[in-house]
C-alpha cells in the first residue's frame, strides 16, 4: 500500500471514530444539559418574583418575558433578562418587575466576571437588595439614587443602567398599571 493512501485511510478512520464517539456523548448528555439550563433559568425567575412557583415564557416585540405565576395561576409579576457591560465583560441580570405598580420586585446576577472583592460584590444582597421596590420613574444613576459599591463604580453603573435601559423597553410593552 503506498504511503499516501495509508495516510488518508488512517486519518479518515480516526476522524470517523472520533465523530461517532462525539455524536454518542452528545446524545447522552444533551437532554441533561438542556434540563440544567432550563432549571437554572426557572430558578432565577422564581427568585426575582416573590410568591411565584412556576413560570411561563412569552415573546413580545423581540423581548423574552417570563411571567411568574403562583399555585392558583395568579400572575405575580414578570421577569426579563438584561445585559450590562461591566469592568471585565458582560454582566447578565435577571430583573423581576411588577407592571401593575411599576415597581421592581428584585434582581439576580446570572453571570459576571468582575474583580473578586470589588466588582464581584454586586452579587451581595447589600447591593442587589436596593433595587427591590425601585420605581420605573427612578433615574437609576449610581451614586445618586443607586448606592454604588466603593471602588466598583463601573460595575455598579453597568448594573443600574442595564436595568434602566431594558426597563424602559418593558414599560413600552406593558404600560404601568395595565394588564400583562
Amino acid at each position, binding site marked *: 500500500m503506498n504511503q499516501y493512501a495509508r495516510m488518508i485511510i488512517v*486519518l479518515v478512520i480516526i476522524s470517523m471514530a*472520533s465523530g461517532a464517539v462525539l455524536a454518542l456523548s452528545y446524545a447522552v448528555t444533551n437532554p*441533561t444539559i438542556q434540563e*440544567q439550563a432550563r432549571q*437554572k433559568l426557572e430558578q432565577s425567575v422564581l427568585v426575582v418574583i416573590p410568591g411565584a412557583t412556576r413560570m411561563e415564557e412569552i415573546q413580545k416585540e423581540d423581548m423574552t418575558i417570563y411571567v411568574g405565576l403562583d399555585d392558583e395561576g395568579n400572575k405575580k409579576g414578570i421577569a426579563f433578562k438584561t445585559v450590562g457591560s461591566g469592568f471585565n465583560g458582560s454582566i447578565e441580570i435577571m430583573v423581576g418587575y411588577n407592571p401593575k405598580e411599576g415597581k421592581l420586585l428584585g434582581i439576580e446576577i446570572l453571570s459576571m466576571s468582575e474583580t473578586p*472583592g470589588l466588582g464581584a460584590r454586586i452579587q451581595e444582597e447589600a447591593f442587589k437588595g436596593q433595587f427591590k421596590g425601585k420605581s420605573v420613574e427612578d433615574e437609576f444613576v449610581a451614586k445618586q439614587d443607586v448606592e454604588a459599591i466603593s471602588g466598583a463604580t463601573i460595575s455598579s453603573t453597568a448594573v443600574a443602567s442595564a436595568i434602566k435601559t431594558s426597563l424602559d423597553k418593558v414599560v413600552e410593552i406593558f404600560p404601568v398599571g395595565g394588564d400583562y
Partner: protein
Amino acid sequence: MQLIKDFINGVWNENPIFRMVIGICSALAVTTAASNGIAMGLALTFVLTCSSILVSILRNVIPSTVRIPCYIIVVATFTTVVDLFMKAYFPALYEVMGIFIPLIVVNCIVLARAEAFASKVGVARATADALGMGLGYTWAITLISIIREIMGSGTLFGYHIMGDGFVPWIIAILPPGAFIVMGILVGIMNMIARKTVKDTECH
C-alpha cells in the same frame, strides 16, 4: 519496576508544573479555589490517560507524517467528551472553569506526552506515565489553589477557616497572586531538588 519509575517521574522528578513548568496557563487561571484545582486536575488526567493509551495502541498504525493531526483529533475528542459530561453533571464546576476545559486540547502536557513518550512505548508504560503526569499536575495545581483560596478568600473547600477577623488578601485570587504563589512554590521545589541531588558536579 520500570512502570513505577515512569509513574514517579511525572509525580515528582519531572512534575509538569513545578519542574518542567509546562501547561501552566490553566494552572494559573483556574486555581482560585481548591475544588477547582482538583476538578481541573482530574479532567486533565482523564484526557491525558485516555489519549496516551490510544496513541500508544495506534503508534504502529499512524504514519509519522500525519501523527500530529491524529494526536490532536484523539485529544480533542476526549476533551469534548469531558466538556459535555461536566456540563451535564457538574454545572456549577463547569461554570467556574469555563473556557479552560475545552482548552485542555491545547494544553502542552497532553500533546507533549503523546509525542515524546506514548508514541514510542507500550501501553503499560504509556499509562503509567500519563497517570504520573496527571497526578503530578493535579497535586501541583491543588496545592497552588489551596494556598490561593486560604489567602484570598479565607476559606478552604468553601469552609471558613481563618476566623472572623481575617481580611482576605484579594491579590491572591487575582492573576498576579497566581504568579507569586507559583513562583514561590517552584523556588521551594528547586531548593528541595538541589538538596537531594548527590552528584553536584552535574549542575
